[in-house]
């Protein structure tokens, strides 16, 4: 265990002490947790001395915690006519609507919904043993993201959601937290079996409770399956560090719709591995920063098999004194011939003090590939504004029309049926 760095890093030291006190003895998983901690402790909580965190100092967001208030969370599963719901809870006095049926964990810490969805509690030894392959893969994957490793080294209330059949309603991740100043580290693994369609919606907490959430969301998409993942971050005063790992098998198709607005601090670490040939990943990102919002998107796409396709379109709007960051890396392995990889980041700056950073990167080892990347940062076009105004449209309306037009391209791409309620106020 690397303790040298901890001498100076009080924050990581605190984490270490908590970890020591809360040891769970399970040989199969402890080895992994230890490795994760070792990886994490190489850097500790990342500051802007690390290249990937150049504009984002994660230690700052922990400053308000005199004590690290890491809480265990409970997972509860509900079913209603319109959705399946994974609730992340702290308090025992839950509120839930009438049409929701609460599904109890069975004695062996397992939930089976009509054989379609089977959820395992991964704190249970027998489940760890049974799903050790997927866990090995998860922990083994070259993870140079310290925040994901911090989550892994705690591995609090982890669940594995197996999706075995087509589901005609989405799975929604929902937070139910009423206390203030909580640090949460949920870890959810979705395993989508072959030839299945599934939608997953992750709604981050929208209250004003000053939480820090450092989650791990892993999604395995098997052959010929199609997964839509919505990540809705409208999280007010809460700080979110989202670590998402996606693994795509042959002929699978994955769509990420990531909408971020009105959020104090967001860091998205998204890593997508196209491991099977003909797999496809589409990323639609829309971020809107106001006040002193800090939004940082860090995207890594790994093309590891032939004939794979990825397309990233990230559109950002920043106003007031907010900061919007896009850092996108496309890696093409030498095996991944015939790769098509596209990336575009457009940012609109609406005020003098708002800032935007963009850093597209390509790392290509195959010789038969088609890759493109581009980025623009600009202000509202003076000529477009003038044109609208000469038609009698006021400056304010003209500005809002052009701003809306800017995000129209991305809203057009997103299937809005599940998320209309959450994006109305953009």
């Amino acid at each position, binding site marked *: 265990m690397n303790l040298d760095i901890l001498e100076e890093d009080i924050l990581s030291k605190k984490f270490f002490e908590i970890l020591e006190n809360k040891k769970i003895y399970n040989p199969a998983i402890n080895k992994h947790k230890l490795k994760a901690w070792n990886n994490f402790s190489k850097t500790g909580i990342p500051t802007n001395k690390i290249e990937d965190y150049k504009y984002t100092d994660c230690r700052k967001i922990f400053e308000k915690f005199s004590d690290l208030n890491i809480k265990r969370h409970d997972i509860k599963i509900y079913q209603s006519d319109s959705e399946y719901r994974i609730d992340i809870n702290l308090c025992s006095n839950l509120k839930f609507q009438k049409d929701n049926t609460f599904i109890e964990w069975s004695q062996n810490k397992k939930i089976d919904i009509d054989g379609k969805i089977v959820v395992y509690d991964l704190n249970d030894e027998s489940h760890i043993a049974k799903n050790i392959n997927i866990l090995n893969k998860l922990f083994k994957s070259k993870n140079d993201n310290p925040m994901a490793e911090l989550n892994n080294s705690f591995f609090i209330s982890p669940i594995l959601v197996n999706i075995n059949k087509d589901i005609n309603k989405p799975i929604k991740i929902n937070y139910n937290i009423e206390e203030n100043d909580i640090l949460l580290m949920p870890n959810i693994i979705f395993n989508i079996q072959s030839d299945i369609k599934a939608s997953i919606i992750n709604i981050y907490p929208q209250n004003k409770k000053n939480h820090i959430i450092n989650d791990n969301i892993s999604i395995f998409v098997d052959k010929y399956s199609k997964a839509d993942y919505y990540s809705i971050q409208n999280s007010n005063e809460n700080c979110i560090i989202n670590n998402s790992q996606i693994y795509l098998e042959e002929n699978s198709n994955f769509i990420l719709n990531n909408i971020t607005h009105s959020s104090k601090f967001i860091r998205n670490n998204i890593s997508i591995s196209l491991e099977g040939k003909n797999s496809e990943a589409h990323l639609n990102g829309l971020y809107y920063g106001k006040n002193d919002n800090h939004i940082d998107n860090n995207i890594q796409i790994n093309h590891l098999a032939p004939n794979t396709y990825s397309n990233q379109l990230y559109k950002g709007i920043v106003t007031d004194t907010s900061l919007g960051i896009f850092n996108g890396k496309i890696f093409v392995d030498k095996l991944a011939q015939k790769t098509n990889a596209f990336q575009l980041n457009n940012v609109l700056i609406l005020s003098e003090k708002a800032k935007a950073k963009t850093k597209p990167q390509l790392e290509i080892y195959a010789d038969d590939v088609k890759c493109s990347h581009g980025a623009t940062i600009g202000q509202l*076009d*003076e*000529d*477009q504004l*003038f*044109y*609208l*105004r*000469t*038609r*009698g*449209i*006021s*400056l304010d*309306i*003209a500005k809002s*029309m*052009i701003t*809306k*037009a*800017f*995000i*129209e*391209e991305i809203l057009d791409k997103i299937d809005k049926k599940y998320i209309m309620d959450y994006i109305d106020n953009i």
Partner: protein
Amino acid sequence: MLNIENLEAIIKVHKAEKNKFKDKKKSVKSSNLSEYKVLKGINLKINPGEIHIIMGPNGSGKSSLASLLAGHPKYICTGGKISFENENLLEMEPEERAQKGIFLAFQYPIEIPGINNSYFIKTALNNKNEILEKNKISPKDFLTLIEENRKSINLDKKLLKRHVNCGFSGGEKKRNEILQMAMLKPKLAILDEIDSGLDVDALKDIGENIQRLQTKENSTILITHYARILKYINPDKVHILVDGKIIKSGDTTLAQQIEKEGYLSNASINN
């Protein structure tokens, strides 16, 4: 209706654009902006129901005059007066001028990706109705009205559903300008080189529509290089603008004379 007296104006240009003005004399130099004198004492009076043609060589200030009248922020008046219906035009924002009835058809209409053309025209029209304290136009009436005008100007129907001017040909952009004019029914239309780059059919459609929209109440300023559009339009006056000044005014025959002899001979006559 419009009264321009001794109008002088400058343009503020960003350094990156200054090549366009390299043959003009620079007056002031600040850090990023350069200033050029574009209008040097213009007098022009337009009465209701009149069509005025302004002709002149490249860089003489024709488009500057049009942009200044519409309120483009790059142009700054340094002397003289403009009154429109007895109000000081120079004190108004571009949208206020439009709401009072001034319309500028752009020489190079602006493309706005993401805004539907028909939605844009409807927003402008409803905005005007709101100012005039009229009711919003019903969707049905709007469709009838726009369809009528669209047919008259021969604009392809699918261009209404496209984004404003995006993917339009040069001629389609100009037809779209006249469509907006027909919908908004301005008191004073300023048409900046509406006829340049048009084929004979488009010229005919646009010329005929300008004449069609002309009534006893509204007026038109038509800026052009060529007399060919006069086949369809009967102007009341023709002005020659050279180096920021109107050097000669006359009737249609002046336009024909320019077409034959060029601007220089006329400029020298006056000087």
